[in-house]
């Protein structure tokens, strides 16, 4: 247990049912002793990473029918993903269904064992930890699930659901569990007297609050939130998003926020990664990604979001049309995985996979023709860096000018797309 753990019992508002009131978060903050150097809404860019994922891969075998069940292929659900989540910060993962964002979340909580790559949490690689070794880890990494109806056991009371982690980990003696449960229910905005009720007695938004309380029980350092609001009504979504932000601020929890709703992710995360078919195609701070996306897929995604303000103009917005569906991850396209639906695709895209190239202080993009919308270059910007010519065939004359790696963090120098040279701050 680290020194950042919060004190659990003794003099807490939850012990005394009469002290309940409107200022629940004010009350909650009383027992946060750690200093909070920055507010959660701001970027934690300079904070140390709590999670560092390097070249993470998850292949699910596809077996043939029959008795022998040979492995005939792999679903490459996650294929070489690297990123960092700073302490107390949040990274958003967006992408369409089947892009591997949920698998990534499940790998980080170690519900799956990765095929390759490393997951460094708080300085330790947890990618190969045995299931016995994972038990202490479960206290530090918790998950909030999408569906508040199927993720709570219908036969257990709310008190049993929220208190179970305390008993499993032997943190509190049985008679101390109830006050702590009530305190947690109060933190998430539920009536602490309702610990005796069953999940079906609560609405969808309230159930999601129960899920959040359960995730907070062990005071984790990292919360993986997999589509935490997409099953909720619009008016309730905002309540839960605000609750998650308050919780993050109060307890300094880092978030990996997985969602398909680009507006929600923009609101919650100072840094966002866009995934497509198992790979990160663009990762950047919020402003760069939403105001100056450089990858054609990010541009298409953003243009597809219907906008309320369109009502003032009437009709539909101009949008980039993506034809067809996401290809199968069992047999993904060669080279760039997006090329089958990309309007910019050329020969090089089929031959060479574009590296995740850093093009700004906190901006990386994986595209041979990276550029802002309408300003994509004519010739592949990556060719000289990779030592190939413009069609993607190896060019013996060219020497790869920089090391294009798959590092989770950002370098101090980057490739300037305008000047086609390396630049720094």
């Amino acid at each position: 247990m680290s020194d950042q753990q919060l004190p659990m019992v003794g003099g807490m508002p939850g012990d005394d049912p009469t002290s309940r009131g409107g200022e629940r978060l004010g009350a909650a903050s009383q027992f946060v002793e750690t200093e909070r150097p920055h507010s959660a809404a701001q970027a934690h860019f300079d904070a140390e990473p709590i999670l560092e994922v390097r070249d993470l891969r998850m292949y699910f075998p596809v077996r043939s029918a029959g008795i022998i069940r040979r492995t005939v292929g792999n679903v490459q659900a996650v294929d070489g993903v690297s990123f960092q989540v700073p302490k107390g910060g949040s990274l958003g993962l967006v992408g369409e269904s089947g892009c591997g964002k949920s698998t990534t979340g499940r790998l980080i909580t170690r519900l799956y064992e990765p095929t390759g790559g490393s997951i460094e949490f708080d300085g330790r690689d947890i990618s190969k930890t045995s299931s016995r070794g994972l038990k202490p880890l479960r206290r530090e990494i918790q998950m909030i699930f999408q569906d508040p109806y199927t993720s709570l056991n219908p036969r257990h009371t709310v008190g049993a659901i929220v208190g179970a982690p305390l008993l499993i980990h032997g943190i509190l003696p049985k008679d101390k569990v109830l006050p702590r449960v009530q305190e947690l229910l109060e933190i998430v905005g539920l009536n602490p007297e309702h610990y005796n009720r069953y999940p079906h007695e609560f609405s969808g938004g309230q159930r999601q609050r129960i899920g959040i309380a359960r995730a907070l029980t062990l005071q984790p350092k990292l919360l993986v939130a997999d589509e935490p609001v997409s099953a909720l009504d619009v008016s309730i979504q905002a309540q839960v998003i605000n609750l998650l932000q308050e919780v993050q601020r109060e307890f300094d929890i880092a978030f990996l926020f997985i969602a398909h709703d680009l507006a929600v992710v923009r609101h919650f995360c100072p840094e966002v990664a866009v995934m497509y078919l198992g790979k990160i195609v663009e990762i950047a701070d919020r402003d760069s990604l939403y105001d100056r996306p450089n990858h054609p897929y990010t541009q298409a995604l953003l243009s597809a979001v219907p906008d309320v303000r369109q009502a003032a103009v009437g009709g539909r917005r101009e949008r980039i049309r993506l034809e067809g569906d996401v290809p199968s991850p069992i047999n993904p396209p060669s080279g760039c995985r997006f090329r089958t639906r990309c309007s910019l695709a050329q020969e090089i895209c089929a031959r060479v996979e574009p590296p995740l190239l850093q093009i700004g202080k906190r901006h990386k993009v994986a595209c041979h023709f990276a550029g802002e919308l309408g300003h994509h270059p004519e010739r592949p910007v990556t060719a000289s860096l990779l030592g190939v010519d413009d069609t993607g065939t190896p060019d013996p004359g060219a020497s790869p000018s920089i090391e294009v790696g798959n590092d989770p963090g950002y370098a101090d120098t980057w490739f300037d797309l305008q000047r086609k040279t390396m630049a720094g701050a």
Partner: protein
Amino acid sequence: MSFLSVRDLRVHFPTIDGVVKATDGLSFDLERGKTLGIVGESGSGKSVSTSAILGLHRRTNAIVSGEILLDGVDLLKISDEDMRRRRGRDVAMIFQDPLSAMHPYYRVGNQIAEAYRVHHDVSKKAARARAIEMLDRVGIPQPDRRVDDYPHQFSGGMRQRAMIAMALINNPSLLIADEPTTALDVTVQAQILDLLQDLQRDFDAAVMIITHDLGVVAEMAHDVLVMYGGRCVEYGSTKEILTHPEMPYTWGLLSSIPEVGADPEAKLLPIPGNPPSLLNPPSGCHFHPRCTHRDKVPGDLCWTVSPELTPGTRGDGHLKRCHLANPDVVYEREVLPEIAPDLVEER
């Protein structure tokens, strides 16, 4: 006389605990070639009302009253036999979840062709050809081969296209789309919305689109009807409703969604509380327990008297159900600066 005219529609479900007033006095009009967006939370009565137009409520457990005039014929007065003939031919529906709306054991083509053969006396072969034609029209690649696939072999977007093909195969004049894109990704959603608009133009159909996504409404609908607790609380042209809403519930909906264009650091302002129970709805205005503007109304009007649907301050057929005397002023001065400070500066 409008093409579709709904007057005082009520759908009540008697239960042991009391009468659930799922729809309680709904009225609206819709012309051919126009789209009506119906917005509201789950349990606000959106789907129940549209199911009533299709005649899908069983007489044994639902009491449906009012008038639903489609091209001058009251759908609530005709026989079951007559309704069955019209259902699928004049009025068709696209459901939210195409996987559960299709039969998993039958081929997609057979399910589409069946919808055609029910209303047209044609051979199986001709119906199949028509099914292939429709699959092609909704943008399924290689329709002559995919017609023999099962629903599970289609992706989510393709299934929704197949559902649309099934709904449109009889050239219905009224199409009801119940959350047609909620289960889909944004890029696929954009494709499906494009398709719906193209098809509406070709078939000159009246379309009702049920959704909780105000962005979809803004881009698709000509008129909007906002429902809360089984009632219409605001109704008018999309432009009016989304730029000058006069009902606190609509304000709440607008302020609780994050927008891609808005300030990301701004705090979301959710509507407090939970949607009302239809079994035991709140007294007076159904929205008053969650309303942050109720103190501006003198006395206890909001608690005791249910407001009527009255014309908005700007006219133009805008209707709102609220006791506030000057909602437009409250909106301009208090709500808009919180929702969209940049728009205030522009004005």
